[in-house]
């Protein structure tokens, strides 16, 4: 396992930085262009969620190497209000107040592994993984 890289998500330009970092990791393990695009897009969605719904947070990037199989893992964490109804949020087409789709259900389809932990009042942590 390569040493993880942590990025702060406090401003809009930070979302762009997260995208670029995820792109770099994906390229380094040789993901196909389509898989790269899916991973970067999912990361963009989740980074934006962290910023706009979580009040800011962090993204931790890791390059995985398990039994010769390479992968990219990104964990988004915030101390925001949390998601009260996870099931609802993961449903397609769900839009929270403010007219901004949370993009969780869609992001889940773009990656191989998707884990989310969230509790109202305690923040949210989402981990996405894409394997080669």
């Amino acid at each position: 396992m390569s040493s993880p890289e942590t990025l702060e998500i406090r401003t809009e330009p930070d979302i762009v930085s997260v995208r670029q970092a995820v792109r770099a990791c994906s390229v380094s393990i040789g993901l196909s262009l389509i898989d790269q695009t899916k991973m970067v897009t999912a990361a963009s969605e989740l980074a934006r969620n962290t910023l706009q719904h979580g009040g800011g947070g962090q993204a931790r990037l890791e390059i995985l190497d398990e039994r010769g199989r390479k992968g990219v893992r990104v964990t988004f964490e915030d101390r925001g209000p949390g998601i009260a109804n996870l099931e609802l949020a993961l449903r397609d087409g769900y839009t929270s107040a403010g007219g901004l789709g949370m993009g969780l259900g869609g992001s889940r389809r773009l990656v191989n592994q998707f884990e989310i932990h969230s509790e109202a009042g305690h923040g949210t942590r989402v981990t996405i993984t894409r394997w080669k």
Partner: protein
Amino acid sequence: MDARIPILKMGPFLLVTIQVELQDQLAMQLQTDLTERVSATSAKGVLIDISSLEVVDSFMGRMLSTIAAMSRILDAETVVVGMRPAVAITLVELGLKLSGVRTALDVERGMQILRARALADGANEQP
């Protein structure tokens, strides 16, 4: 430095080429600038070239739909051109529908669509 995305006038149409990662401020600025130009020039169509974009997320998608909606109110049709295959596949998987947005392969095709529509409108206006 106040960076703005340039808007080119091509006859009755406006052309915007998005080459950088659009952030909130830049996006809002583009929306404002475009609606002002459409109104000022009575443009009949807006072409948005996204052939340089490697990633289009839901924020960008919503922005494109918003531009299309605003332009339509001002009687201009919006055509988004040059979407890359990887982006198209990802958007479908994401479940994002670009509502109210027509698409074309490139600027030339996009212009054809706009011209055809302008012609049809012109024909409808014949007394």
